[in-house]
């Protein structure tokens, strides 16, 4: 048996304040709820990842030799549904947002702790239904549920899957509602809006998108369930409906949804780059407002998913120009982060490695979005692997990389433990390399004309597909390793002090892990955000007795 290298921490914190399963399942502590989400979200990430592995295994050869067509179609559908609704949308807000926002603003908890707990239960119900669907035969409509295939032709569990996503949406809405009220009303004395960490700004903007967009997908899925159950013709021309109306309603939420997935990640990157450059973010105000601009403009571009759907060319023009406009604030962020690094004191710790990776990968992802925003270019590229590559660059290279950066950055705060640095840096590099190898060839495949959601493909696409599948193996391992060392660190990791990274922010001024009430006395903020001259860099503290 390996003995713990350091004496066991005795100081009371939120983890050891109460014991027993019920103290967790009935908790009102935002930090414990964040941990509950961490377990659940990680579970779904693993399931979604297994489906991804199956996809890449099948696509390593042109023929359909691993799975039959129906199974393959279910696999890619479930991969999308699980990754989007059960992993990406909740990940940073429900885990890091829930844990950190009250700490960052000097509050004891979120505005509505019981609603926070209910949101986790709602997520679990949606997740259970989704898991049930996976185990009993799945659904094969694609995560986009286009009608009339989903309403009248599919043989899968369309209604149940739609129900799972529908229920899950309410978890999202409640989380967003909680964040908005909290940021408005529970900031510590002296903490004005423009002294808030950029992570908070990012989550505020995200919450606005969550509360305004999610109800629309809820009602769309509700109509889809009615149609499938009762054969009413909202969206099926055979019953008098319009399939393109479904697409409009669906994308009205699902496009802003991608900003729900990326904005929190950008908030993480702002914090990480600032900390590991020991410098206030350059253009703080611009970064803050760019989050708001992305949230607003993000609601106005959904029609760029419909350029070839028979949407009018004039409507298309409006959506195209707005899609370019929504890209500009993201570019502004990238340049401001670069300027933050300029003449800073840069330390290449693991979170910083992920943040740097984010900058490269999100840049490519964002720029390839510009290809798709050009209508004439989109006609050739839409529904091909170019789109698949684009969205994986922004969602995995962007959102997931930011999520990993955040996990690695705040892990010592959340658990009081540090993870092994060597392994963490190695896996960061593996993720970056594996990711590029997996998805860059897909841009080329897309321009060549390989459509997406194809189970079998012509042999001339084979070489690029093999490269992609090889990269996926590396990426998978890169994701697996942190799972191992994070768990390892809980028992054997070095004990972390209150501020091991030398970061600014109120969360670093309380113990690691924090006590249940977060702060012994409510802090009073007297200086501007990111004031590195006042930081106390507390690497590690060992408490005995």
């Amino acid at each position, binding site marked *: 048996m390996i003995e713990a290298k350091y004496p066991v921490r005795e100081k009371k914190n939120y983890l050891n304040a109460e014991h027993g399963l019920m103290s967790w399942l009935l908790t009102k502590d935002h930090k414990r709820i964040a941990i509950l989400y961490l377990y659940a979200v990680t579970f779904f990430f693993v399931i979604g990842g297994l489906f991804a592995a199956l996809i890449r295994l099948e696509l390593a050869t042109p023929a359909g030799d691993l799975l039959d067509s129906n199974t393959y179609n279910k696999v890619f559908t479930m991969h999308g549904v699980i990754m989007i609704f059960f992993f990406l949308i909740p990940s940073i807000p429900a885990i890091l947002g829930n844990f950190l926002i009250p700490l960052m603003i000097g509050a004891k908890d979120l505005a509505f702790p019981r609603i926070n707990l209910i949101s986790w239960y709602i997520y679990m119900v949606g997740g259970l239904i989704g898991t049930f669907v996976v185990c009993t035969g799945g659904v094969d409509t694609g995560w986009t549920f286009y009608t009339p295939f989903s309403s009248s032709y599919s043989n899968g569990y369309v209604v149940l899957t739609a129900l799972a996503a529908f229920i899950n949406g309410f978890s999202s809405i409640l989380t967003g509602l909680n964040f908005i009220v909290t940021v408005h009303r529970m900031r510590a004395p002296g903490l004005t809006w423009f002294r808030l960490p950029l992570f908070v700004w990012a989550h505020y903007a995200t919450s606005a998108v969550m509360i305004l967009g999610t109800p629309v997908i809820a009602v769309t899925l509700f109509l889809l369930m009615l149609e499938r159950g009762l054969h*009413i*013709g909202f969206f099926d021309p055979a*019953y008098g409906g319009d399939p393109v109306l479904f697409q409009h309603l669906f994308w009205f939420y699902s496009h802003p949804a991608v900003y729900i997935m990326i904005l929190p990640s950008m908030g993480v990157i702002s914090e990480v780059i600032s900390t590991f450059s020991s410098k206030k973010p350059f253009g703080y105000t611009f970064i803050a407002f760019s989050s708001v601009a992305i949230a607003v403009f993000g609601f106005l571009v959904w029609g760029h998913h419909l350029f070839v759907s028979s949407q009018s060319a004039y409507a298309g023009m409006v959506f195209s120009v707005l899609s370019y406009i929504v890209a500009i604030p993201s570019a502004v962020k990238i340049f401001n982060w670069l300027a933050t690094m300029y003449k800073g004191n840069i330390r290449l710790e693991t979170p910083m490695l992920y943040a740097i990776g984010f900058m490269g990968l999100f840049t490519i992802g964002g720029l390839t979005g510009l290809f798709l925003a050009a209508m004439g270019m989109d006609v050739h590229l839409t529904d091909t692997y170019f789109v698949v590559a684009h969205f994986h660059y922004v969602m995995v290279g962007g959102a997931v990389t930011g999520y990993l950066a955040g996990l690695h950055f705040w892990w010592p705060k959340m658990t009081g433990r540090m993870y092994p640095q060597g392994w963490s840096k190695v896996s960061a590099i593996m993720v970056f390399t594996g990711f590029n190898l997996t998805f860059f060839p897909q841009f080329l495949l897309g321009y060549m004309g390989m459509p997406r959601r194809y189970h079998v493909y012509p042999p001339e696409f084979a070489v690029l597909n093999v490269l992609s599948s090889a990269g996926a193996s590396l990426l998978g391992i890169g994701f697996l390793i942190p799972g191992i060392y994070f768990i390892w660190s809980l028992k054997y990791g070095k004990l972390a002090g209150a501020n091991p990274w030398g970061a600014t922010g109120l969360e670093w001024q309380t113990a690691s892990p924090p006590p249940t009430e977060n702060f012994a006395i409510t802090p009073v903020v007297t200086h501007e955000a990111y004031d590195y001259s006042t930081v106390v860099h507390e690497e590690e503290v060992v408490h005995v007795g």
Partner: protein
Amino acid sequence: MDNETLMLEHEQDEHYGLQHHFENQEQQKDASTIGMWTFLLTEIMFFGGLFLAYFIYRQWYPAAFAAASNNTDLWLGAANTTVLICSSLTMAMGVHAAALGKRTMLVLFLVLTLMLGGIFLGVKAYEYHDKWVKHEIPGAHFECRDEKGAPCADEQHTQLFFSLYFGMTGLHASHMIIGFGILLVLIVQSWQGKFTSGWHTPIEMFGLYWHFVDIVWIFLFPLLYLIDRSGRGLH
């Protein structure tokens, strides 16, 4: 200790009803208010999708929609509208009574609101039953017939109107049923003297919710019952 005494004691206690993570009552009240308004905003978006679908299909199939709309009962709809507006009035009076610390008046007005809400739901149930009898419920048993009993011209889009009718009024009714349940709880709590003039936030917040449900109906009624009343119905 009787309820009146309890209420008076709570009047003096500025921490009464204050949850531990809030600094003071004002912060808690603000948080609840912003929270409820934000929630109502999400409800607008929720109903909005249905309204959008209604507007688009009405634009495309005006004849079918007009004919089907004539089949709703104008007088029952108008009566329901009046009932619901009155219930908003009684709810507002209830909030006022709570602010003045008048327990009996509060309970009275909440009960009146409950009764009016109950009348609304009862009329709705009657309308739905009527539609069931006339085979106007979308689905397998839907039959579309004109005055002479012949199949109507555009069955699919007539059925679509009724789908939207049931979807929108059904969603509205389910919001009312939830409100009904919460109102019952509030009545019991008010009777027990839980609310003081210093703290009666749940009453106020519920009032906001109830008014919102009323406003949704005020939009639903003209759209579903009043438009294109040309006198030519389906039956």
